[in-house]
């Protein structure tokens, strides 16, 4: 049973990705809303994320606007999670943009970037566990470090900030995960809340601050068998307007609601396959913006039980 629950919640880890916004620098926002890792257990997961955007919105209506034809990215991510104690989990994420590109609609040209994104380090604390009500609450905190490429060029042009692989900014990301199981039921639920607060980028080139990002995710998971978990999630996110040179950029930010069906399948030797699709069902942007059409994710994860290292030399011979 414990193993099943572990599998169920690990499966959340890639399926809560926030790819609703099409065009922002840095890693796709990850929720990492998983819990259930035991002490000394290391979970390694590798995933590929794909996002495609080709629809302009004005407010909550789609419009014909001929500027960017489309924007897409393929992002490879490696995540590590380690149960430091039975209550504290350490997390890290690093990713590489295999291809981050945009194509213009009014001129036959495209821009392409690739390279390392940001490094994300964090922890999650298992704060509350009510066994009778089967509810857990786990707050956490993550910090993003802009270690990747932020000055990529395309020919004689330094690429604009919004297509650079790295965000160029430190980010603080508080999170809360609430989980609920139901007695004698194969159904479980989780809610993941998070915020993202970016440091202003102060360089010769720009004085830019990403708008704050607030996210809420509600997910239901159904254990259809010992190995297969089916999930459906509603993912809401709201981003405030960005600022540049102390002026608010009016046509940035907005609210997005995605439906994210997902499933995970446990293979032999603790390997788990995860996959999800993100389908936008509501968008309301400030001004005119290119918005996401769909996103896909596929990942594989494996847990390792790390044994405590024992001294190799008997103390009495020292």
């Amino acid at each position, binding site marked *: 049973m414990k193993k099943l629950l572990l599998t169920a919640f690990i499966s959340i880890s890639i399926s809560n990705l926030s790819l609703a916004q099409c065009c922002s620098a840095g890693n796709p926002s990850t929720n990492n809303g998983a819990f259930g890792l035991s002490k000394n257990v290391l979970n390694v997961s590798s995933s590929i994320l794909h996002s495609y955007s080709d629809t302009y919105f004005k407010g909550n209506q789609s419009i014909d606007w001929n500027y960017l034809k489309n924007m897409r990215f393929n992002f490879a991510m490696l995540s590590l999670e380690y149960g430091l104690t039975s209550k504290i989990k350490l997390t890290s994420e690093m990713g590489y943009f295999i291809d981050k590109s945009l194509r213009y609609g009014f001129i036959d040209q495209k821009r392409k970037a690739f390279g390392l994104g940001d490094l994300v380090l964090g922890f999650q604390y298992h704060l509350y566990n009510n066994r009778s009500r089967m509810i857990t609450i786990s707050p956490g905190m993550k910090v993003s470090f802009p270690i990747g490429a932020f000055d990529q060029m395309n020919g004689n042009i330094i690429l*604009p900030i919004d297509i650079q692989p790295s965000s160029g900014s430190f980010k603080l990301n508080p999170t809360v995960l609430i989980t609920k199981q139901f007695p004698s039921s194969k159904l479980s639920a989780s809610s993941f809340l998070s915020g993202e607060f970016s440091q202003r980028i102060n360089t010769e*080139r720009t004085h830019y601050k990403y708008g704050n990002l607030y996210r809420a995710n509600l997910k239901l998971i159904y254990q259809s068998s010992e190995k297969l978990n089916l999930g459906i999630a509603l993912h809401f996110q709201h981003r405030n307007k960005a600022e540049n040179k102390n002026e608010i950029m009016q046509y940035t930010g907005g609210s997005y609601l995605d439906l994210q069906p997902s499933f995970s399948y446990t293979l032999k030797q603790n390997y788990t396959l995860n996959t999800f699709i993100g389908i936008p069902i509501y968008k309301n942007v400030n001004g005119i913006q290119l918005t996401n059409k769909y996103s896909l994710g596929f990942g594989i994860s494996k847990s390792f039980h790390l044994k405590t290292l024992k001294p190799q030399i008997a103390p009495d011979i020292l």
Partner: protein
Amino acid sequence: MKVVSLVLAIFGLAFLSSCDKENKENVTTEKPTIISLTSDKTQIKYGSSEPAKLKCTASGEDLNYIWEVDFGDLFIINSDGSEVQFTASPCCMGEKRISCEVSNGGGKVTKSIIITIIE
């Protein structure tokens, strides 16, 4: 005797060639100078309908041009990269500082111009 003459001739040519190379290495490339950075418009509407055309005029040898703006889109429109077309999507309204960096073996210089994106 012929062999000795041939060897001397080869060494002589090699010596002259190396002198010529040293002379070439001693010739320093002068740092480029940007004479002007101009735009046909100081203000453009967002979208693709009214691009601004910018020209960076510089003096010097073996010039390489690099263009930069934080938000907005630059497209090279001539063969040496000294002219670009600038447009922006709606996100990027406001003043944009566009920089032209010109470089060669002697160094690099940068000049900027402001173009305002309006609705």
